[in-house]
């Protein structure tokens, strides 16, 4: 998968490096601000109440 992405990124080495970083940031942001907030309440990691 990573090989495939690397081969398909345009712009020679500088372009590929820039492209990879942009992709990495985009995926991290998606995880941090969309996926994790949605996922977290379903995990039993943070119960602090007695019930």
């Amino acid at each position, binding site marked *: 998968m990573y090989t495939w992405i690397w081969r398909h990124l345009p712009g020679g080495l500088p372009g590929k490096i820039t492209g990879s970083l942009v992709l990495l940031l985009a995926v991290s942001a998606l*995880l941090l601000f969309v996926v994790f907030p949605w996922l977290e309440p379903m995990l039993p990691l*943070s119960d602090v109440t007695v019930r």
Partner: protein
Amino acid sequence: MNEDSQQPRHARPVRRSGLGRTVVRGIGQTLITLGLVVLLFVVYQVWVTDEINRGRQSELTQDLRQRWESAAEDPLDRPDGGPARLPLGEGFAFIRIPRFGLDYVRVILEGTDEDKLTEGPGHYPDSALPGEVGNFAMAGHRVGRGSPFLNLDQLDPDDAIIIETSDTWYVYRMLGASTAGGIPGRRIVEPEAVEVVDPVPGRSGEEPTRSLLTLTTCHPKFSAAQRLIIHAELDGAPLAKDDYPDGPPALTGG
């Protein structure tokens, strides 16, 4: 410029195709990716949620101070003495714990659902209100989301826990190991131990005579296997904010 036909001495490894190779590489990459995602989740839990919470707490602080200044009706005021119904999700008081530093201030919200606890310590709606006889109980996160109760295990008996309402300071002090009445200052219980937030902790149905405060959070850190419970008792009469505009003596170690 790699001419494969001439087999250069330092040739790159030949890219071999084959189903097995592809599958193994795919599994390997997936596992590495999952590992990185889990690491990122830890970063999220421990730092990102703290940042988000900091912004939210300062909004809540402004809101509450503004409401107090605008002399809007304080839901804690009950001229008729009837049971208060605080609006769920709304901040109504501040908690300060001098042991954690003078800058330790958090807005307490009404309700203990996760969407409230994400924003700050939450008040168990059925428990007493600040200063009342009974048990003023709150839950708060240990790690992440502002980590309001991260260091509760470092509190010592007699440490002050100060509640600020629109016009009053309430100074509670953590109970000792075993005081009269059998309520310890600190204990670790199972998650089902709802009796710790009863009006008389541990004795359901008993009529309360003391003004207690209870904090619940998860234990150990990073886990939700048990609950860390802190019990404190109101120390002396409530202090009017008009008399102590900069906080009660207990705030600065008195």
